[in-house]
């Protein structure tokens, strides 16, 4: 653990290790999302009540999972950055935020268009929906806060603090469907629990969720490598990268 944290202090080490890791995550993302898409859209049986509109679940649930996981990741990397001053963690937090906002938007949008044929309404101030909207605003707040400082150090600290405070919203999102049961149904899919769906519906969903997580890891690795080039361009080892293959 400590050895790993100390290694994270070296952007050069991270640049090298991420170069080896990222092709695997990109390949996994492509394979899993490709399989999950074909299976979920064309092969999974239609829901006996919702018909084919239920196929929205295959983008809605993975996006909602990722939206929350990315915020927790930002809070953790923010904490590690504040405690140990590890720049890589701050870079990762900065690079994750737009993807998190995009995932939150996908979850809200796909939920709204799913709600029209299913609930008869695209929006209600239901606890789950409202707390997800707050999550979107928190993401936009973190992104805006980073852009609001001329000093990168101040921007990083402010964004870290907001991520650590805002993470309080995550358990609220998770338990909102149990605490205030108004519109959104409780979880039908968990990684660990018994599925409330037949296997032919559940398997492509699991594949999509894993694919979205692979995509998140792959994109973050790629973008942190770019961010290293941006922030560490004065370092000798970064200059030596110039002229190498892209």
């Amino acid at each position, binding site marked *: 653990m400590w050895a790993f944290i100390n290694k994270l202090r070296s952007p050069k080490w991270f640049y090298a290790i991420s170069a080896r890791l990222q092709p695997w995550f990109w390949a996994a993302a492509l394979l899993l999302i490709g399989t999950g898409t074909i299976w979920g859209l064309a092969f999974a049986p239609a829901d006996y009540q919702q018909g*084919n509109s239920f196929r*929205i679940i295959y*983008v809605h649930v993975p996006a909602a999972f990722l939206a929350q996981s990315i915020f927790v990741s930002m809070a953790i990397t923010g904490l590690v950055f504040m405690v140990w001053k590890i720049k890589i963690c701050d870079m990762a937090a900065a690079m994750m935020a737009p993807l998190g906002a995009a995932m939150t938007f*996908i979850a809200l949008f796909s939920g709204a268009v*799913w709600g029209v044929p299913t609930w008869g309404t695209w929006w209600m101030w239901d606890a789950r929906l409202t707390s997800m909207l707050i999550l979107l605003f928190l993401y936009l707040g973190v992104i805006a806060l980073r852009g609001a400082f001329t000093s990168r150090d101040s921007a990083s600290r402010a964004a870290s603090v907001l991520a650590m405070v805002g993470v309080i919203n995550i358990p609220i999102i998770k338990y909102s469907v149990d605490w205030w049961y108004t519109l959104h149904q409780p979880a039908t899919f968990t990684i660990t629990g018994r599925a409330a769906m037949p296997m032919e519906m559940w398997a492509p969903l699991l594949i999509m969720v894993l694919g979205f997580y692979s995509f998140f890891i792959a*994109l973050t690795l790629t*973008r942190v490598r770019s961010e290293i*080039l941006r922030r560490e361009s004065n370092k000798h080892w*970064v200059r030596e990268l*110039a002229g190498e293959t892209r």
Partner: protein
Amino acid sequence: MAFDTLQEFFAMGGHAPYVWSAWGLTAALLLGCVLHARAERRQLLRQLERRVRREGRLAADPARATPIQHDSGGYTNDA
């Protein structure tokens, strides 16, 4: 297959606007993220190359040198 014909697949049992708009937005945003990350990396590598070339030229001909403002990245510590 859950559908008999391609038309049925696109119609999604009458739910086409809902299913395809949700999937379309997701595909567009995921693809957008990939393209953005690729453009970002290429641009940064180009900038780095230009900068290294410029500094190489200056090292060869110090008379033309003008002081370069180095961006420390705004970090007060250098862990």
